[in-house]
């Protein structure tokens, strides 16, 4: 059992380093979409919610699990849709003009 705990702890520590490394390079103009995007990612608690509702034996567990799945779904779906809506708007300067310069470069 302790070995399992150790394995989880390893995953935790390495993930923490990856999380810090990745974010260090994000330009500030993308901070809001980043916050929103990572907000959607912690919606993975939906998987945990499904597991507890799927294993529920008592009515109490069923009610709590049901609520958890609803909340987690809100988190996942809302998070991804909002982030996509924000990012949809990030467009570069006049794409046609850019395409032209690309042609010239060729």
């Amino acid at each position, binding site marked *: 059992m302790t070995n399992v705990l150790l394995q989880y702890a390893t995953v935790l520590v390495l993930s923490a380093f990856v999380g810090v490394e990745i*974010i260090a390079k994000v330009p500030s103009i993308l901070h809001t979409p980043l916050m929103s995007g990572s907000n959607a990612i912690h919606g993975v608690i939906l998987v*945990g919610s499904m597991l507890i509702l799927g294993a529920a034996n008592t009515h109490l567990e069923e009610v709590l699990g049901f609520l958890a799945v609803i909340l987690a779904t809100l988190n996942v779906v809302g998070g991804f849709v909002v982030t996509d809506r924000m990012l949809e708007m990030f467009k570069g300067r006049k794409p046609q003009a850019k395409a032209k310069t690309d042609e010239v470069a060729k």
Partner: protein
Amino acid sequence: MSRGTLIDLLYLFSATTFVLALKGLGSPKRARMGNGLAAFGMLVAVVATFFKYVDGHALHHVNLILLAMFIGVIVAVPTARFVQMTAMPQLVAIFNGVGGGAASLVSITEFVHIKSTNPATYVTLEVLLGVLIGTVSFSGSAIAFAKLQELMTGRPVTYPGQQIINAIVGVAALGLIVTILVQGSTMLLWILLIVSFILGIAFVLPIGGADVPVLISLLNAFTGLAVAASGFTLGSNLLIVAGTLVGASGILLTRLMSKAMGRSLSNVLFSAFGSVITASGASGTDTRSVRSGSPEDVGVLLSFASKVVIIPGYGLAVAQAQHVLRELAEVLEGKGIEVFYAIHPVAGRMPGHMNVLLAEANVPYEDLLEMDEANSELQTADIAIVVGANDTVNPAAVNDPTSPIYGMPIIHADLAENVVFMKRSMRPGFAGIDNELLYNPKTLLVFGDAKDTLTKLVAVVKAS
């Protein structure tokens, strides 16, 4: 390959997409693809979970799961699609809060489920941490939402002995955790739930509206950690990886944000910033003179300009004037005038919020300058136009050590030859501090609704 192994491999795939998605969010070009990739990874994980065995049997209550998901989807999609872009921070707060709530519920339910098997102490500890952090995130996000949505005052809510009371609630929560670890009582777990809920509220109440975005980022990191704690309890690597990624990156992002305001994180969280408005500034307002003008006056200024820097703030978005502003920039560019937008890191209600609002109005992101770049451009600019911004151009942050925003990096609008300050009234900004720049002889104040003023200005410039 066994069913379990295949599902774990699919989970590994999902975890990889989350890492790549966060990386993709580092560039405007790949960000949207990254978000889509994470959504796909999430879908894979959810579908795979339907085939998972728990306690040696296939998932029970599949119909209930599908029903709950259906309810979640029909509420979340319209909300996320149709809410105004200016309300984005509240929306992120609420979606974050429900995630924290879900993590807390997962931990509680798992505790109820495994309690009869006398779980090891460390398992109980993980459960308790999940409940504590998840619930604080839930109730804290709810208050943050109420503050941003203006359901309650955006000012810090303070009462005598607040710090002491908060400390007592915090200690009570820790005491409960220790007691539950020793006794394993489910009754006390419910009390911990209530205490955590109160703690979340008490923690957020004294934080002023201007600081709420930093708080949301912190609560976002909290939810990530609560999810990681649930991952330990459920034995899920996927939850641990995703939760920790969000927790670690969220804490870093929170620090970046408070740094942009020139303050430490503990100062943001515990100083009830903005509750004391400097009395001297408020009473001195009437005696100092300001120079105000009409859009036509600005039009004259603009006809002599060759370089214009626009400094937008949240007031622009409130007036829904982003599109008119872009129109003005295009008209000016048509006359051969260089136009840039100077974006303060905390302009709007969240870092990068202003960029999103301007992107919505089709402003090309190449025209958006970050603060340092903007300040060097301002030295050679003829006109700085401040629209709906206030605290982010307040020289008090540099000149006045007694000012609450002293030390915050600002955009030096006063470096430009002329400053045009579009303002609704003489009221101080979000942080509640008087602005020296208004009384600068270089400054021309144009009172009125930002949208009206800009519309008139576009007409004036077009006609000249």
